[in-house]
């Protein structure tokens, strides 16, 4: 079981727990503002963009090549950007803070 903390662009803090699935699914199932997941989680739409808190970046690891490419279409992307449909929920994520991108 991992606790995942989302901070929305309105600075709302949403704490959720899960043990499987993708982080995007978790966010959508709980109505986290700003995580849309329009493509259903196949890394095609870039509407599940989060900035991982820098000190927690080792919990998620960096974006894959396809994620990095897709993130290039988003002006708000930075080195801590991930598309959270590509982050699997595991115990290693426990405590991670994710800032929902604009």
């Amino acid at each position: 079981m991992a606790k995942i903390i989302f901070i929305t662009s309105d600075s709302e803090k949403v704490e959720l727990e899960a043990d499987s699935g993708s982080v995007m699914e978790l966010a959508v199932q709980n109505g986290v503002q700003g995580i849309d997941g329009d493509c259903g989680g196949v890394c095609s739409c870039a509407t599940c963009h989060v900035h991982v808190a820098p000190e927690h970046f080792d919990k998620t690891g960096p974006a894959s090549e396809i994620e990095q490419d897709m993130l290039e279409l988003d002006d708000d992307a930075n080195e801590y950007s991930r598309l959270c449909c590509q982050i699997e929920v595991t115990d290693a994520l426990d405590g991670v803070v994710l800032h929902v991108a604009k």
Partner: protein
Amino acid sequence: MAENQTCVVIGASHAGVNFAFALRKAGWQGNIKLFDADPTLPYHRPPLSKAYLTSADAIDKNLLKAADTYQKEQIELNLGVKVGSIERSAQVVQLQNGEQVAYDKLVIATGARPFIPPIEGIESAEQLFPLRTAEDVENIRQAFEQSEQKRVVIIGGGYIGLETAASLKKLGAQVTVLEREPRILARVTAPYMSDFFQELHAKNGVAVETNKNVVRIERANQQNFVQCDDGTDYPADIIIVGVGIRVNSEIAMEAGLEIDNGIKVNGQAQTSDEHIYAIGDCTYHFNPHYQRFIRLESVQNAVDQAKVAAAAICGKEVNYDTLPWFWSDQYDVKLQMVGLSQGYNEILIRKEAEEHKFSVWYFKDDELLAVDAVNNAKAYVVATKFIKSGEIINKTKLVDSNIEFKPANLL
């Protein structure tokens, strides 16, 4: 924004649901009432022919929005309720259960339905399914489990047909795709792409037969026989029909709204009635980039038009101006498409060193119209940037895969 106003939405799929949430976010304080004949909580459609078909997941793993978020956003979701007609003069919609619902603003997001071609015997064929709804997938899964030989014939070599072929093959089916045209995906891609996918399916053990015009389906000995006009005959335990769609525009037409290859809307997604908007697959709308009216069957269009309609209804200055994009997943191949290729007069292909990684660039003279990127998100991204900016690409550099794939390197 008045609190006592009501916005009624007909259709609760990608367009209707995203609209409802966008409308609330844009500041609408009145009622939002969503109606859909489908009794299932609104779900993602694209995975139906892809990952969802091969999984054992229930549809609640695939929802557009969590069930309780509708309540949280005060969106009234009426499922299993069909809207019968629109009475514009009274500003009410008539439900088929006899009730009437008044609206101040009405949004038509009725989408499309599978086209079932008038093939002799198609009405009496058994285990024959379209694939557009969660119920269709349930039916296919059930028929598949009950079938011993699992011989699947797919009528139509478009994206739905090919994705379904790949998915059912993965589940162990014996799959044949019958395409009427000389090549698959003929309506949407260049011959190079058709050849690539034909070969990909062949390698994976799916028989893709072109120039196959299905004329009859016979039922004998508890089997279907799919017969083509060249005399060939394919036994089938399950038949999937994927030959395109028909727009659900009847309700708009009967209400006297302007129809032209779909419900005609302006840049604010507004129909010929100022109180009625239309969004998604059912609309015929102007695309400023390509300077022509188009109808699109895509998630992108549904979601983006939904946002435009919501903003327009809330009095914001807005104009629908987005570049169309699409995707398809078959086997381990990820296809991403951006732009509209119609009208191209030159095709360039850039191949990367890795197998099954390339992109097809559609030009009209120097203007880049569209790109199909296979396992190549970088090509998709670079293409999107060029199509948007309108900068001229150096075609010699483009096809040289030794040059790093960056917009600045291709000028």
